[in-house]
């Protein structure tokens, strides 16, 4: 076997190891050249929040190439939706990003309501806005708690989960579930709030505010976290926009793109809140944006509770069979970023076609641009700070 054949064979083997995704360049074997090492991270690595696989090409300890391999959790949610009544699809929409279930179902119901031309009562819209923000806090607590865990700090996640428990109990009392709420309905909500909810909500809000401050003291001032995350994984605004990132990742890079502000849905036009933006776009900024966004969510919830009008929780006259005609694209701000539902209807109750633009998918796409040039120990810090849910990547 001559050298070229051998090189070809070894590149084939390398390609197999990589999952066949990369173009392999065979390095000419010079006297001092070292071989590059291929390292598979995942699909089970805990830092990837599920089953994301990242194929790394290493030169010593420096990453020269990185490619995320996705699709291990593909559940064909978009296709399944084509065979179900739009009201049944809500259950599927709960599940692609399982830690921001309410925000997902909100986006979907808004899309269906716009297609079918259904007006939603004011009270339902205020309650929806409030629950979307509660769910945002839940999701952000999850990520700001698990991020230090990935960096090696065990404690913060227990604090985060203590707060989550409180909020989940609150949401359970109204929606009936801790995770997959299924509280939205086309034309309103499943049911009105139970008696005593607002009182309990105010208590939980006060407690959450206090504890978010406490949580911030616990992790944001920590020298080790600061050293591990400051100036690590820099993402310039241009790159962030070019790869279509959104949510905390984009805000940390200094771009305040937020559908809640740009094209308000539900009652976001009537509440006052800030979109916190970072300055540098490093891992520390991304974590900081999460904490600040939680504080803003608390402000929105307070305004929603104060301004909740009396009224119906569901539109009184709803069609027995939905008729969805035409097409609509709804952008909502999920905890992880921009969530888009593109729905095409052909006059039936099932959507003719559904395309989801999920935040995690676009956020993960920036990994190949961010990782090259960084060290392997920083990999976990960077991957964790992109904030994605694999179910949301693969749908």
């Amino acid at each position, binding site marked *: 076997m001559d050298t070229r054949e051998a090189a070809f064979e070894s590149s084939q083997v390398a390609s197999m190891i990589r999952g066949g995704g990369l173009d392999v360049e065979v390095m000419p074997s010079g006297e001092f050249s070292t071989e590059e090492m291929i390292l598979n991270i995942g699909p089970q690595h805990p830092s990837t929040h599920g089953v994301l696989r990242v194929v790394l090409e290493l030169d010593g300890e420096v990453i020269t190439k990185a490619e995320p391999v996705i699709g291990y959790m593909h559940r064909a949610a978009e296709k399944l939706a084509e065979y179900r*009544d739009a009201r049944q699809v809500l259950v599927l929409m709960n599940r692609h990003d399982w830690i921001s279930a309410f925000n997902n179902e909100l986006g979907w119901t808004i899309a269906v309501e716009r297609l079918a031309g259904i007006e939603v009562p004011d009270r339902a819209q205020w309650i929806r806005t409030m629950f979307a923000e509660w769910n945002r806090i839940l999701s952000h607590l999850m990520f700001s708690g698990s991020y230090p865990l990935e960096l090696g700090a065990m404690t913060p996640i227990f604090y985060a989960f203590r707060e989550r428990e409180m909020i989940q109990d609150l949401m*359970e009392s109204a929606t009936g579930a801790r995770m997959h709420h299924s509280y939205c309905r086309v034309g309103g909500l499943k*049911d009105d709030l139970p008696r005593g909810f607002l009182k309990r909500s105010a208590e939980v809000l006060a407690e959450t505010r206090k504890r978010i401050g406490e949580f911030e003291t616990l992790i944001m001032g920590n020298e080790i976290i*600061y050293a591990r995350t400051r100036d690590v994984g820099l993402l310039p605004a241009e790159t962030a926009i070019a790869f279509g990132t959104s949510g905390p990742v984009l805000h940390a890079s200094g771009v305040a793109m937020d559908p809640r502000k740009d094209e308000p849905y539900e009652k976001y036009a009537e509440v006052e809140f800030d979109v916190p933006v970072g300055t540098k776009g490093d891992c520390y*900024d991304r974590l900081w944006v999460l904490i600040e966004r939680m*504080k803003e969510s608390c402000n929105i919830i307070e305004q929603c509770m104060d301004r909740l009008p009396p009224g119906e929780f569901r539109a009184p006259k709803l069609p027995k069979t939905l008729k969805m005609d035409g097409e609509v694209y709804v952008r909502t701000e999920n905890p992880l970023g921009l969530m888009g539902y593109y729905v095409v209807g052909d006059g039936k109750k099932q959507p003719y076609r559904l395309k989801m633009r999920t935040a995690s998918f676009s956020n993960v796409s920036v990994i190949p641009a961010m990782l090259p040039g960084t060290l392997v120990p920083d990999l976990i810090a960077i991957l964790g700070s992109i904030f994605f849910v694999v179910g949301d990547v693969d749908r």
Partner: protein
Amino acid sequence: MAEQTRKRSTGLGLAKGLSVTLKTMLQPAVTQQYPRVKPDLPPRTRGVIALKEANCTVCYKCSRECPDWCIYIDAHKETHDPAGGGRARSAKVLDRFAIDYALCMYCGICVEVCPFDALFWSPEFEYGEYDIDLMTHEKERLEEWTYTVLPPPALEDGAVPTEEQAS
């Protein structure tokens, strides 16, 4: 808008963080001792679906609306002559009503579409099994769950109940 704290002096952040840890250490634990202490679940909790068989008219609405078709219904028609005479009436009689909880997504659509109040949510959740077949609850078992159903909560101030809720 809040500004990020830029000034870093060694050890201060650690000390502040540890003060939170110390404060929490002195507080009572929040852990619920689950198997010994049962959680206090709200009435709306979607734990298990209960069937009141007497209310079921075998309209198949629940099994049709279920997003993953996990409700199995078998029925047959019986004709009987009314006591006062007249033509024979036919009525559907339920033979089998089963919910496969291994498949159920706990969305609650079946409970909502049931026109005759035959299905209810119960907050019971301890029905895990070692065998997946046992997760299919037949109508006798579903009937038993009705004894654990809690009355629906009163609504918050300002809420306008639907006609169904008001009656």
